[in-house]
């Protein structure tokens, strides 16, 4: 059979392929705990958490085109909100996650306001300030946060069920929690991006004056986008808190934000799978280089690998896979079916066929003829 195979959107083969893809993801997610050892599964949970944060950053920087060097702070706000509520106030962790997300949303919107007037380097500097201030804030309010000594004993115990028994069961539980959180984050981003709001976000990124003239309210779109992006990073932070059990300010340094940015770019910015794949790459790559060599050499190898990946895959892993996939399978988009609405005006002329609904009564002016006042 000649490649690429062409499939028409909405037909049975196309639906089958889409369903198959979903089934594959579900199968991998469900099978993984039975295939890998518990300590390996614990690593997967760590990668999932990084992926969630990258998904949040990608919404803002990838789709929205606004750079943020402060996402470690949002991650931290989420982590400490969850940590403090769970340890000091005995909150049920999922409720604490939601409150952490709300805190991050509010902080994100507040940071988003100056971001309206700034872009490029200047926006990077403002968000950088937020990122740099956060660890100092944690140290300053040490009665609340535990300061440099750390905040201990944060946990999200598995339900009392034989399936989640013992230490392996606890790892399995957190794995599922992280999977659900990632799914929720992706659904959030997917729903925002695939409709009217998503077009407005991309329109603002591509051509701001044109987007505004078309009716996009820049203030609302940009600030809320910042807030939602921060909230997703906060959710990742909350998971990080219950996963590691210990929070210290050093976990939320600038380096963490840089990791997220690298994850986003490596995976493929402004794509749905990009930040997830990038999150895994950025989690596992240092582990592998650490196993191959040790000491400073591992860091050098890590850096070289990233440079190589950026050069070979300009549009990220997802972009590369997409181009590869396009050689095998092409999905032909479905043309929208014409509307047969009787309330609409009949076609103007035979050669036009369908008249758009915007039509107002035809003017009597002969084309080009001057109109006297």
């Amino acid at each position, binding site marked *: 059979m000649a490649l690429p195979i062409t499939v028409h959107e909405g037909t049975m083969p196309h639906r089958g392929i889409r369903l198959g893809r979903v089934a594959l993801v579900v199968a991998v997610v469900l099978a993984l705990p039975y295939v890998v050892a518990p300590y390996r599964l614990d690593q997967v949970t760590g990668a999932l958490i990084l992926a969630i944060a990258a998904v949040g950053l990608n919404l803002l920087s990838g789709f929205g085109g606004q750079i943020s060097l402060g996402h470690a702070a949002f991650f931290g706000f989420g982590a400490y909100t969850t940590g403090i509520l769970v340890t000091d106030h005995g909150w049920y962790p999922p409720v604490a996650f939601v409150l952490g997300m709300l805190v991050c949303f509010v902080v994100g919107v507040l940071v988003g306001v100056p971001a309206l007037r700034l872009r490029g380097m200047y926006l990077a500097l403002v968000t950088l300030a937020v990122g740099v201030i956060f660890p100092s804030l944690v140290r300053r309010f040490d009665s609340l946060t535990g300061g440099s000594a750390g905040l201990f004993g944060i946990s999200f115990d598995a339900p009392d069920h034989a399936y989640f028994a013992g230490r392996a069961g606890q790892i399995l539980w957190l794995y599922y929690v992280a999977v659900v959180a990632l799914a929720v984050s992706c659904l*959030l981003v997917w729903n925002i991006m695939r409709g009217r709001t998503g077009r407005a976000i991309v329109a603002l990124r591509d051509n701001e004056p044109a987007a505004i003239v078309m009716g996009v309210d820049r203030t609302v779109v940009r600030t809320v986008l910042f807030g939602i992006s921060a909230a997703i990073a906060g959710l990742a932070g909350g998971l990080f808190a219950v996963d590691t059990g210990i929070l210290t300010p050093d976990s939320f340094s600038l380096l963490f934000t840089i990791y997220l940015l690298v994850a986003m770019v490596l995976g493929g910015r402004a794509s749905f799978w990009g930040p997830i794949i990038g999150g895994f790459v950025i989690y596992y790559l240092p582990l592998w280089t650490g196993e191959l060599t040790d000491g400073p050499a591992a860091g050098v190898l890590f850096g070289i690998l990233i440079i190589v990946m950026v050069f070979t895959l300009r549009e990220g892993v997802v972009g590369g896979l997409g181009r590869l996939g396009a050689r095998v399978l092409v999905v032909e988009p479905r043309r929208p079916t014409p*509307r047969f609405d009787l309330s609409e005006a009949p076609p103007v002329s035979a050669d036009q066929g369908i008249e758009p609904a915007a039509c107002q009564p035809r003017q009597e002016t002969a084309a080009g003829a001057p109109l006297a006042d």
Partner: protein
Amino acid sequence: MSELRVDGVSMHFGGITALDGLSFTIGSGQICGLIGPNGAGKTTLFNCVSRIYQPSAGSICLDGEELLDVPAHRIAGHGVARTFQNLGLFPSLTFLENTMAGAHARGRGGYLGSILRIGQARAERELRAEAFELLEVLGLADLAFLPAAHQSFGTLKRLELARALAARPRLLLLDEPAGGLTHSEVDELSSTIRRVRDEFGLTILLVEHHMAMVMGISDIVVAMNFGEKIAEGTPAEVRSDPAVVSAYLGAPAA
């Protein structure tokens, strides 16, 4: 039905008067060409109508509604659409998505509606169909699923027209539509502009340097110099107006 009335519009930048009490009216369904030498204030006026500038004095009314009270991101909802000199398109969206984005002001549902997917699917489907029909009208249907980049300037200009029409405007503002086009593309665009004016019942204001185009498609022409109107009338009248001739060629020797 849709009449644009510009009345006594003045605009000062510091000590410089860019527009000085400019007044003219575009009747319903008319195409009005705004001409004048560089620095005459054409673009300033254009930017006042499209709400990028706020004039120092005067009034700009569309069908009796004061446009100067409307912020820039609301004019689309008040029946005003515009195109840009250097293309106001979104290169990472497809032709179809660009056209759909043009209808933003008519849609409803912000973040919450999108996240919860309340009443979005149906509206999206209808908008898709409508945008596709617009692309068909402008002969762009075959490009519907391609990104709005890597196409000829003339093609992209037509897409911009489709995008502007998706807003279902009453007044269409065209900023140097012929700029950067080849000779045949200009002719093609001229007939397209006239055709959409007739089909959609639009009132059109265009700023243009390309004299042949302006004189060819305009019902009325407003000539400006130094922020003031120096002539107004049919293309033939304006072309032979002594003030216009002297503005372009200099005053005849005494």
